[in-house]
């Protein structure tokens, strides 16, 4: 099965030419019912063709429990983005990053490969002050043009701080989870299952919500 059209592949080839280092993608699927698993496998297969710096490893959520627990994987399909040393950076995509979400996925690949942008100095300082683990969940739908912006910010924060992990969750594939978090509008951002906000808000809003946990007033 091919899911990326030749046209999209050609565009991706151009954009991903900027990749500096290799990026490893750990793809978790499971046997039995697994909506969009097949499509996600096909998508990553297509991506391998686009740039040989993208290396894909297949795991099974039930059989590879060690890796799943190391990287905090609980859903399938799930893509964990690892650096060239195969180190876990705290970022994953739960559900297929298709539709608009391809944009955040590609940007994340570039960031992890070493051709990303720098955060402003004062943001870095605020992140260095963090002491507790922070988990950011970003619920998205594939038809949502604002969502990639929120996913990019969350992932960028996770890449910039060892205390932060961040995950995209495709709300339709994981509808039980989105019901549990009362998601009716995306992007919805949930921090440590405690604080939440809606919309692709400025980085400042992400930081303020994170600091609510880190420095309770």
């Amino acid at each position: 099965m091919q899911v990326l059209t030749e046209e999209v592949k050609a565009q991706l080839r151009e954009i991903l030419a900027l990749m500096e280092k290799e990026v490893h993608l750990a793809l978790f699927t499971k046997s039995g019912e697994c909506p969009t698993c097949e499509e996600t496998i096909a998508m990553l297969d297509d991506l391998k063709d686009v740039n040989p710096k993208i290396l894909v490893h297949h795991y099974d959520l039930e059989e590879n429990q060690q890796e799943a627990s190391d990287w905090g994987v609980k859903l399938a399909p799930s893509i964990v983005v690892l650096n060239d040393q195969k180190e876990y950076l705290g970022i994953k995509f739960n559900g297929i990053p298709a539709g608009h979400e391809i944009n955040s996925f590609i940007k994340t690949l570039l960031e992890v490969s070493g051709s990303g942008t720098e955060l402003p100095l004062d943001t870095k300082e605020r992140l260095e002050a963090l002491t507790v683990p922070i988990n950011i969940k970003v619920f998205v739908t594939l038809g949502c043009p604002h969502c990639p912006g929120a996913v990019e910010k969350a992932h960028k924060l996770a890449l910039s701080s060892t205390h932060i992990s961040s995950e995209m969750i495709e709300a339709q594939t994981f509808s039980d989870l989105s019901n549990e978090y009362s998601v009716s509008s995306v992007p919805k951002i949930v921090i440590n299952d405690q604080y939440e906000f809606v919309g692709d808000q400025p980085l400042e809003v992400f930081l303020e919500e994170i600091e609510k946990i880190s420095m309770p007033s």
Partner: protein
Amino acid sequence: MSLTFELNLSDNLKPDAASSSFSELQDVTIIGAGPAGLSAAIYAQRKGLKTLVVGSRIGGQVLDTSAIENYPGFSSISGEGLVQQFQNHIKSLQVTVEQLEVAEISTRDHTKILHLTDGREIRSKTIIIASGSHHRQLGVPGEGRLKGRGVVYCAICDGPFFQDRRVMVAGGGNAAVEAVIDLAKIAKEVIIVHRSQLRADDILIKRMQQLENVEIYLETTIEEILGDTMLEGIRVLKRDTGEEMIIQGDGLFIEIGYQPNTTIFQNTLNMNEKGEIIVDSLLQTSISGIFAAGDVAESLYKQVVISAGDGAKAALAANDYINHLQIRKEHENASTDGRGQSTIA
């Protein structure tokens, strides 16, 4: 789930690949990459001006639209599809597009300065502001509390959550009626509520009226949004009879028009009471050399084709401004030379 891939990244994601934009003086810097900004870029680049586009979301609000049926040349095209066409055009002209956000603008003599949120600065002879607009809020009790809990602002984003549910749409323009038509395919029932008469295009209204699962309330104002932690309904006032009633539903899509993205220019440029930038017939703002085009500029009508037209006009006006600046500078130089000579003599 039908799979598509809506790629819209700039080809210029790597910051140092375009570092010249940050050191060299630009002729035209365009804030915004929607129809107004991209059209301005096409005209400026073709005039041979050193052109840079700085826009946070390439495509702008066109991406929020499911279908566009009133842009010449396309009887019907998806928002995504039209953005792709714009991008192909921009790319063929090799315009530099930076996916960055502007925090503020200022002026130093004749030079305009853009301050980016990442702390960097861009210097330019002219600026075209095409930062567009965003959805307006209803401003009734309950809206803040239930935002994202049934109160939503993007039909193509959040429609899927309301499969087989009962949803309401507030508004009476094209965006509202389009939302009703799209939602009617997903939801069990759609109720449109508008405070006056519909002002959407006749062709859309007719399409909506043919749908069996749509109910229409006109001359009806929404007074309050009800529900504790999730939206349960709305309290409305029927303006003709003065009767109050409660409409129950699971979601409320608010499509009541737009608010210009101009807070960052508040301290620099003159604006009207709606927050739109005031411009003259050449789209020049209260500072010469700074132009505004599209949804941000003072105008009653907000459409893709109008924004694109504005963008073209602003780019041509910026080109004229630069030419005059050049002549003025030569003139100033000549007159100082002249003075120099006369003191010697």
